[in-house]
């Protein structure tokens, strides 16, 4: 069976740290930065558990700031 591997990038300066992507992610890939903030003071989202990502786009679909890009590969 082919295995799907994904990854996302978050435009950290555009992210407002709303956490909706974190909630939407079915594989608990994402978290908000616990300490670090961006130039506007937001705890931006990042892949805290990159191995779990399946590239399903749920995070990008619910993101109000269009700051997530999603990548996906099929591994044989």
């Amino acid at each position, binding site marked *: 069976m082919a295995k799907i*591997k*994904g*990854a996302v*990038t978050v*435009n950290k300066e*555009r992210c*407002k*740290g*709303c*956490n*909706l992507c974190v*909630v*939407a992610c079915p594989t608990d890939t994402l978290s908000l930065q616990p300490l670090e903030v961006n130039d506007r003071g*937001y705890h931006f989202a990042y*892949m805290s558990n*990159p191995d779990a*990502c399946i*590239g*399903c*786009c*749920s995070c*990008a*679909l*619910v*993101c*109000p*700031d*269009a*700051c*997530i*890009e*999603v*990548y*996906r*590969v099929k*591994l044989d």
Partner: protein
Amino acid sequence: MKPEEIIDPANRVYARPRLLTEVNTHYCPGCSHGVVHRIIAELLDEMGLEDRAVGVAPVGCAVFAYNYIDVDWVEAAHGRAPAVATALSRLSPENLVFTYQGDGDLAAIGTAETIHAANRGENIAIIFINNAIYGMTGGQMAPTTLIGQRTATTPYGRRVDLNGHPLNITNLLAQLPGTCYVTRQSVHTAPAVRKAKNAIKKAFENAMAKKGTSVVEIVSTCNSGWKMTPAQANEWMATHMTEHYPLGDLKNE
């Protein structure tokens, strides 16, 4: 495989839509407006309507919608977007004309314009963001505020004897012969966003096919006004808002 190996343009399955401008929106973190803007920007690009779309922005939180979606816009007076869109559409019938309105704009001050444009069957798409509150002015009661819901002007909760009933205007619009497609959607989960996108796509298609007025209500959140986190607001919306504003198609002709 490491993320650095996967993150390659060849593997990209989702990117920021081309027709969203580079500026950061003024919306609060977690606001539904941003999601709906993104959907519209995606559709205008995918449907090849970039050159023929004219949006009508409301007064309310979305007043600056014209700063974010890279097509021609007209900013209307409060509530008058359907009247403005009527003229835009009749004088430029080759264009896609859509309004983007909140609950106060569409269902309070602009009720007459909304109902009459829809009743005339103007060939426009109406995107209606219903978050049951006046966001821009600081969280006052909207026509769609639920009974018991606390706002700046219903600090002890909306009461029927004082404030009347929540106005379900989308149900009213579905009864008008001028509307061809009336639907109620949400954007609080990934599947909901996919469905909402399909609904707005259909509304745009109807407008281009001159089938009459399409209304897409997006039952939304205003986490700032509701005084919740974005995730809590989504949950509250799914539990309470959809009870009074049930999701799904009301009319599809």
